[in-house]
């Protein structure tokens, strides 16, 4: 295996995982659990 190719493959996979993780984060935050978190935080501040 060409070391440059191996390095590139590793770099590609790493970036793909980062982007995939980001997409998953967006998916999870689309569930409105944070509405109640804001409510609880708001009440705590008051």
């Amino acid at each position, binding site marked *: 295996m060409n070391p440059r190719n191996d390095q590139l493959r590793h770099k590609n*996979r790493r970036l793909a995982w980062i*982007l995939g993780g980001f997409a998953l984060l*967006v*998916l999870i935050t*689309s569930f*409105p659990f944070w509405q109640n978190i804001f409510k609880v935080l708001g009440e705590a501040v008051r």
Partner: protein
Amino acid sequence: MSYTNALHDEAHHHDNPTGWRRWLFSTNHKDIGTLYLLFALTMLFMGGASAMLIRAELFQPGIQLLDPDLYNNLVTNHALLMIFGAVMPAAAGLANWMIPLMIGAPDMALPRMNNLSFWILPAAGTMLILSFVVPFFPGGGSQINTGWTLYPPLSVQVGMSMDFLIFAIHLLGISSVLASINIIVTLLNMRAPGMTLMQMPIFCWTWLVTAFLLILVVPVLAGGVTMLLFDRHFGTSFFDAAGGGDPVLFQHLFWFFGHPEVYVLLLPSIGVLSHIIPTFARKPLFGYKSMVGAMIAVGTIGMVVWAHHQYTIGMSLGAVSYFMIGTIIISIPVGLMIFNFIATMWRGAMTFETPMLFAVAIILMFTFGGLSGVMLAVVPADMQYHDSMFVVAHFHYVLMPGAVFGLFAGVFYWLPKWTGHMYDERLGKIFFWINVTGFNLTFFPQHFLGLAGMPRRIIDYNVMFTEFNAISSVGAMIFGFSHLLLLYIIIKTIRGGEPATNRVWEGAKGLEWEVASPPPFHTWETPPLIRQEQTS
């Protein structure tokens, strides 16, 4: 940008798989691009057939061919097939074919994931078609009558066909996100040595912005329909007011996806135009940097103006003012792109082959669609136009020229490169004129229908709307059947024709024109060396 290809050798040592294995197990970007394009063409005809049925029904007032539920099912099916089945896969097909060739990469960064991204699509397409078909079987439940927006509470009440649709959307979303990840990684990591981001062809830039948009918005739609599924089957009340939920939340989630989706459909075609216009004007693209800035601005602002689709839900004055102003601001970067195209053509040595005819038509008709968009962005006006045929006319004037005609232009522009044969220019021009005439006959009268008060998504209408509806339906038949000519031209070009040169078009510039027509199975295995003389 110029390049040296001293080491480029087309690597004959690689296997060229044949038969069904070539397509099923393919990791080759050109083969996968072809598969995407064939899938999109199939879906285009299915979505087109449903549109023609809708227009056949609306030819006269009263109920002739369809029943109301089937009519609404067709409206839903048409939109989903066209958006998710035809336009997005076609744009992905162009991306797969052209991005590696344009940036001097041997393939996409993650070829196996590329294979997966495509092969999810036929499964998703089958689910989508099943969602249309299932109600016709015993016990199949009611038809989907929600339109593509799937608003609850109606979408919670629909029969099992909605579950097929939800899973189809999940699969389509997974395919889109995987393809987007692949495109971003390819563009960021696989460019030929010496090619900076600001030297990338504009088509690549449009896809970089599009791919980021998809990663940001598709998971939100997936989340929305997952909650819908939970409300339907698992006793949750995300969108049920009686259980403490809010149906308007779904609208926000849907349009947070739905509005940027418009730019997802538009931007790749803008990228195609950014290549076609300089080629046939025989001038470099005017304002490369401003084009890049404009498309990033369109993507960014487009993410934060979704609720202009929801003015009538009763938002606060502050909220509607914000969404109105934000929406109108988008016309600035979009206008800048249009002016850049006009400036590119200015004093150019223009010729009007089929791709350029489409490009000029797109500029005119897309601008028209944009202007009616500004009308719809204004809150008091939108209160009148909302859910009328004016909206249908508007978004077809945006999406047909802005997205579909751009893809047609791209197909005509690159078909000689892909097949090694020139298409029949005379037939191409005939197709253009029939297609564009049919399109305008179909959708121009719908502006008047909407302004006069005809609602959308209703099978019947008042007799006062008869004449414009008849014209629109005749136009739709011309428009719909004209695509058979497109199919004939494509098949004819694949089967033979005048051999295409490597460069194909006299004014074409870029790495993709340096490889043979058709390109060998493997290209750019030794990357070209980019000399940094100019940046566009």
